[in-house]
């Protein structure tokens, strides 16, 4: 019995020694091998709190493209792995996480799916490290329009606020002309996005329809639960149309509460952010005359490729894609295409390839997306406005925007700001 115990101890001891030796010698080589087989892409985004949907739907969109890339064999057998980190919407956290993703997790690239304030923090980190970064969520125009922000290794596949405003202004002016109305009122959330978007919309509305008058404006704070005071104010001003850049639950609450007052019986509504699956599907009683910019709908652009992408997304994630989903998917597509074209994972080589790159995409206005070389931002994406209903496909006679018009007016706007 004693002999057996001793023998057992020796065996266990030997096994332990082997284990230690294995841990110190064998495992690192295995780990190195795994690292060599993986292309790591770090994603700082918002995965918790009130706008967790931003992070969830962005990373879903990116994951869908990565899965297809990996299923096709990856890059020389190397698979892509996404490392997702929750910034909680705090810029200081975005900055810290991005540094950790690059320095500690050894990510090859950053796909920034954070909100605008976090994006500036991410931008400053990659400015220092030189890591290739694609901003896929922030829509604030200055991120790429202001040349002071420009760095060779950062690109943007999120739509730009100024471009949206041009499209909105042109469409709204046409509807106003057809229906012969001139009295407008605006209601937007009282923070940078709301103020900027509203000001740009008014600018381009007046550009396309000089007779337009803004008879009042309302600025509820973000996540305002009760809109009564603003609704009655709008009713007193008696505008013929209102423009709103309220988003998500705030927009739905405003519509629900406005319906109670019959606010929309005589007023045409232009809601830039209504036509996103996750928002529009929550409106139980849609007013009669509502128009929206197209954020993400499977019916816009009305192509088989876009419908197939939406179906694949819904089948995998049991949810509908959002505006953030297609923007992140596009960012990922560009990144993966740059790997294919350069046959490398070198940030500099890939950045050079990305500048001016065109790819086939279900989200392109003509089936193609372009990363414009001059400001490294996305153009040619399908954007437009249309009249909204609350039944699938949610949008009627959507009008696709003309990128020639957008580009011309955007250039004039940049020149006025001394940016071009």
């Amino acid at each position, binding site marked *: 019995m004693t002999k057996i115990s001793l023998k057992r101890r020796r065996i266990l001891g030997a096994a332990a020694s082997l284990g230690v030796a294995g841990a110190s010698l064998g495992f690192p080589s295995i780990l190195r091998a795994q690292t060599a087989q993986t292309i790591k892409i770090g994603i700082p985004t918002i995965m918790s709190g009130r706008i967790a949907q931003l992070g969830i739907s962005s990373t879903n969109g990116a994951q869908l493209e990565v899965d297809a890339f990996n299923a096709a064999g990856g890059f020389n057998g190397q698979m892509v792995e996404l490392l997702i980190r929750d910034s909680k919407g705090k810029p200081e956290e975005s900055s810290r996480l991005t540094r950790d993703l690059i320095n500690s997790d050894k990510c090859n690239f950053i796909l920034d799916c954070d909100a605008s304030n976090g994006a500036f923090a991410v931008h400053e980190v990659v400015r220092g490290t030189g890591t290739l970064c694609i901003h896929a969520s922030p829509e604030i125009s200055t991120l790429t329009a202001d040349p002071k922000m420009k760095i060779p290794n950062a690109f943007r596949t999120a739509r730009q606020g100024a471009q949206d405003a041009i499209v909105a202004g042109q469409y709204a002016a046409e509807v106003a002309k057809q229906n012969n109305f001139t009295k407008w009122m605006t209601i937007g959330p009282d923070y940078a996005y709301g103020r900027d978007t509203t000001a740009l919309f008014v600018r381009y509305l007046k550009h396309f329809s000089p007779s337009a008058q803004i008879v009042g404006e309302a600025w509820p704070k973000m996540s305002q639960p009760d809109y009564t005071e603003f609704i009655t104010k709008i009713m007193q001003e008696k505008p013929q149309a209102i423009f709103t850049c309220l988003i998500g639950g705030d927009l739905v609450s405003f519509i*629900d509460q406005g319906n109670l007052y019959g606010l929309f019986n005589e007023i045409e509504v232009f809601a830039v952010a209504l036509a996103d699956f996750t928002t529009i599907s929550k409106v*139980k009683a849609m007013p009669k005359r509502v128009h929206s910019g197209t954020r993400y709908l499977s019916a816009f652009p009305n192509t088989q490729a876009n419908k197939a992408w939406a179906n694949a997304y819904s089948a995998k994630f049991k949810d509908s894609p959002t505006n953030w989903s297609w923007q992140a998917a596009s960012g990922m597509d560009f990144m993966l295409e740059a790997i294919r074209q350069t046959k490398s994972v070198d940030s500099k080589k890939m950045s050079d390839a990305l500048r001016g790159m065109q790819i086939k995409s279900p989200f392109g206005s003509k089936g193609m997306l372009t990363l414009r070389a001059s400001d490294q931002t996305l153009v040619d994406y399908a954007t437009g406005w249309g009249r909204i209903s609350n039944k699938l496909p949610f949008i009627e006679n959507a009008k696709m925007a003309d990128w020639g018009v957008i580009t011309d007016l955007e250039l004039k706007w940049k020149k006025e700001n001394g940016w071009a």
Partner: protein
Amino acid sequence: MMTQGLNAFVIGMLLFLVASGLTLIFGVLKVVNFTHGSLYMMGAYLAYYIYGITDSYVLAVIIASAGIAVFGVFLERIFFRRLYQSNFLMQLLMCYGWILVLDDLVQLMFGAEFQSMGMPSFFATAPLMIAGAPIPLFYIFLIGISFLVALAVWMLIVKTSFGSKVRAAATNTSMTGALGINTSLLYAGVFALGAGLAGLAGALAAPVRSLVPGMGFSILIESFIVTVIGGMGSIGGALVAAILIGVCRSFGSVGFPMFTEIGVFALMAVVLVLRPDGLFGKGAQR
């Protein structure tokens, strides 16, 4: 003028509904219940869930209010009663912990995306015209319920033996206990009532407000403004303060739209300077 005046009532009475439970719990238990907003959120979500199953708004409101009241008993008996003798920071930590737990729980069950209940068909009608001002039927219903709640809580506290025990316990707990009154039960009852009022407010607000995890936070701030202006612990004070804020918001949105929000805080500052315990606070009554 009439429109804005009536709207002041609409805004004010909705605020009162939410704040009444908060001020009641503070008045009796001396607990600043920071989970009140989360209980409001739970009430809204529970009503949304029940309404989805039964298609009955009445049932949804009743079950949500009762359910949150029962949950209030659970919170008070298991957690909060241990902190009555602790300092304010311990209470704050406990509340903050529960805010995180409840927000995550709601997110787990209903998802991170906001939800919308929709207006029950009975109320989905054109607004009524009162003296030339449009008032939605649903808001008239809410104003009516709010007044009933104010009246019922006031009568409960002032006119019933339960109320006299509650007032006695609020003044001197140890003496009340020495007289043979079961103060533990009394406290659980008050916490349940306060929580039930939060649940009721959430359920009543659900048809017109988007439901989202964390929605209790913004309403919590507004509730505190109401209770501070009215005097913490005073139901009557909360009623007056809520209507004052309603007036400030309603007329401010027309008269000085850029400063409406500031106006509410300015109102609170003025009240606190003149009456540090609020309009109907105990200090003001002395």
